[in-house]
């Protein structure tokens, strides 16, 4: 049986092949969150093509929508669409854009891209679940740069005030936002807003899984994931030049080598 580590490597190779024709997409951001996304979809969410149309289930919003390549790869692995269609990524007539669109793709639960929208929407879904007496949870991934947005902290205040213990916010803390605005101790910030906080290494599947299973009796949960932007590709790791740039064929070949 293929291990989770091998599956993630395979997904990373597919992401590179997906973006190669157009050179579009945010490759390092996708590699920053792909481990978290895989564990979430494979072990926690229990979302599949049979229940995706129902609202009485777990939900996920990729608040940092520019990590869409990772979401597409995971949803494709979970049979929401074919890998062949994914190869049309970012083309004029494609359903797969640089940011995910919930009106085009099954499995995408919100159209994100403008930062600071996904967490407050997830908050509304969590509140809606409470109103409807549902017992499932809403998960979202935000970026550390996204945490510059005021709406993130408005949502953080609201979630704690309304005791939404069914809301889980995973912060992809790869420190790429540090060049603009240092957030320093994010755990302390969420904690002071009334959240339960867990710190994890964001590429270690056991830690990810353990954290995702935690349920507080009244507080929303913030998982601060220490991640590396571009994780797994040496030339790309923590290198801001790669933020929104596609590899050449030669670079892609080298990347695929790194992932063998």
């Amino acid at each position, binding site marked *: 049986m293929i291990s989770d580590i091998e599956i993630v490597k395979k997904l990373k190779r597919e992401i590179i092949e997906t973006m190669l024709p157009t050179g579009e997409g945010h490759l390092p951001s996708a590699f920053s969150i792909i481990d978290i996304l895989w564990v979430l979809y494979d072990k926690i969410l229990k979302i599949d093509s049979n229940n995706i149309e129902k609202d009485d289930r777990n939900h996920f919003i990729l608040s940092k929508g520019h990590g869409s390549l990772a979401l597409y790869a995971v949803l494709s692995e979970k049979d929401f669409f074919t890998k062949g269609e994914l190869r049309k990524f970012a083309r004029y007539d494609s359903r797969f854009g640089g940011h995910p669109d919930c009106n085009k793709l099954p499995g995408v639960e919100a159209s994100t891209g403008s930062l600071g929208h996904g967490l407050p929407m997830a908050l*509304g879904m969590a509140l809606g679940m409470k109103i*409807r007496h549902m017992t499932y949870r809403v998960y979202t991934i935000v970026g550390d740069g996204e945490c510059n947005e005021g709406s993130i902290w408005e949502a953080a205040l609201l979630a704690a005030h309304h005791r939404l213990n069914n809301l889980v916010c995973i912060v992809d803390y790869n420190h790429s936002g540090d060049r603009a605005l240092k957030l320093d101790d994010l755990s302390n910030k969420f904690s002071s807003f009334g959240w339960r906080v867990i710190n994890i290494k964001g590429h270690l599947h056991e830690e990810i899984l353990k954290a995702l299973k935690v349920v507080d009796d009244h507080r929303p949960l913030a998982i601060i994931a220490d991640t590396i932007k571009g994780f797994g590709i040496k030339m790309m790791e923590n290198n801001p030049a790669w933020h929104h740039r596609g590899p050449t064929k030669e670079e892609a070949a080298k990347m695929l080598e790194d992932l063998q």
Partner: protein
Amino acid sequence: MRKQFVKTVEAVVEQDERLVLILGDIGVFGFRNVFSKYPERIYNIGICEQAFTSLAAGISKMNLIPVVHSIAPFVVERSFEQLKIDFGYQRLRGSIIGIGASYDYAALGCTHHCPGDISLLKTIPGMNIIVPGSDRDFDVLFRAVYSGHNPNYFRLTEKGHALDVPVTFCKGAKIRDGRDGTVVAIGPMLERVVNACTNVDVTILYYTTLSPFDAELLSTTFQTGKIAVVEPFYEGTMSHDIVSSLQGRSINMLSIGVPRKFLTNYGLASEHDVACGLDVASIKTRLEVFFNA
């Protein structure tokens, strides 16, 4: 109109358990009787317009029906991107209820004015824009659309008219026929227009739904080249709809609305009406000069 808003929404909250009311710390006293009755569906959410607009979109995704309320500049201009993307682009249902119109809170100054709300919201495809002219208009139109598939914006004012005109969502109404041209009265401007048109022989049309715009009514009733629009927000806001409705025909158009500048005075809304040329006397003078020329 604010009292009617409370009355109507209170009644619908009773009837429809999907409705969730979100107040941005505005209108809280008005709803004091239902807070304790429906604590799970009525929230004074706080002063955080961007987050609560997205939150409302999330509530909509859970097959509930959010109704969001605050003063117009805050619920429209501050959270415009959330309205555009979360409600507009995602095609979610819900109602945004803005109070204060262009300058109802005149004494509070420019920060509380919002003559640009309709211009702005008209850039969001699929958003229904409704400007009730009276309490009755609001009651009829809210009940007609709140549970539909699109997002709705209701522009409420403290200064509605007292005329009793049947209204229908998406439809304008012909108030009277005339031979020298057409006057389009938007929402609360209707009574002023009727009173201002005593010496001009014009057709008067009444519009409360601005998006989608009832082009057919205008197109079929328009006879001569002159048309005046009396609008309670920035002048010229309705120009695109008017021109599109009359495509291929020569028109001479007059827009009477709020001048496109910051209104830096305080005082009363009625004083701003005079300064903006939106009182009956000013409207009458401009219409008579335009149609009798």
